[in-house]
């Protein structure tokens, strides 16, 4: 297996943001069956090591594409964008909204108001879906995004990253 293969090509998926999970899951299983280290049990050490590395590559590719945030980040990288880093700035309006939502979540948590926490989580999920919807429009099949589209996509991936962290925190608060 060529471990430099584009993750989308690896799973016979079009290179775009919108994901067909059924195809991803089926291709993943088929690939793993082919490269699984156990199938190399009788082969020599080199073949076995190659099988382990191939399986790790397939799994990493699978996790990357399955995760909405990482899929966006991966697509950005496909088009030679600089990696997401500390130089990136989120819009003040977005951050203000997030700060308010975080305050509301803290308050609800201290008050033991589970309903409020869940309604905040619902709005967060909606916000995440909105970012994902925007990414699906920017990264479409067989089309290299313009520089302008890439800059927009970058903001959406960053926002999605931010919202995902917040949603994870909220999940923890709701579970307690």
């Amino acid at each position, binding site marked *: 297996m060529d471990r430099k293969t584009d993750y989308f090509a690896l799973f016979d998926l079009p290179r775009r943001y919108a994901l067909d999970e059924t195809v991803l899951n089926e291709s993943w299983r088929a690939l793993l069956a082919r490269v699984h280290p156990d199938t190399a049990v009788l082969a020599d050490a080199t073949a076995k090591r190659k099988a382990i590395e191939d399986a790790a590559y397939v799994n990493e590719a699978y996790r990357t594409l399955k995760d909405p945030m990482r899929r966006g980040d991966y697509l950005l990288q496909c088009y030679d964008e600089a990696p*997401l880093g*500390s130089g*990136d*700035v*989120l819009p*003040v309006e*977005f*951050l*203000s909204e*997030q*700060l308010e939502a*975080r*305050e509301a979540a*803290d308050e609800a948590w201290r008050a033991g108001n589970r309903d409020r926490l869940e309604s905040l989580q619902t709005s967060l999920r909606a916000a995440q879906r909105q970012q994902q919807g925007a990414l699906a429009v920017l990264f479409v099949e067989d089309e290299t995004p313009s520089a302008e589209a890439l800059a927009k996509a970058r903001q959406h991936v*960053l*926002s999605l*990253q*931010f919202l*995902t*962290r*917040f949603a*994870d*925190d909220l999940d923890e608060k709701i579970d307690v």
Partner: protein
Amino acid sequence: MAYSEKVLEHYENPRNVGSFDKKERDVGTGMVGAPACGDVMKLQIRVGKDGVIEDARFKTYGCGSAIASSSLVTEWVKGKTLDEAMAIKNSQIAEELALPPVKIHCSILAEDAIRAAIADYKAKSEAKSGAQGHEETAEATACAPPTGVSRTTS
């Protein structure tokens, strides 16, 4: 991972938590966020007529190191001029709080926040002096001295 004594101290007794009214003219607001960890930091300064930072407030949602970094910075900027505050480096914050390498980004966030607050204050005061300039012009036209009266402008 263990936090240093100083981080814990700021985390348990954060200084200057709260908000100023961001619409007030002598207030500068810096709002920054770290997408990777979901931290969001608001840092505000109140600047006196002499250009010295009189007071500061912060609100941070994030880990202990992010809270400690912003708490420390609000203490440090008080009594400093804007230029002095601009010169605060994240490495100084990281050193003071003994932040481990994985938490350096928290000190960078605090440095970004203070810079953003100063930039916001400067943008506001420039807009203000610009507006005043227009008022003066309008006033001068309206109250133009009667002809024959000369004004020394030296």
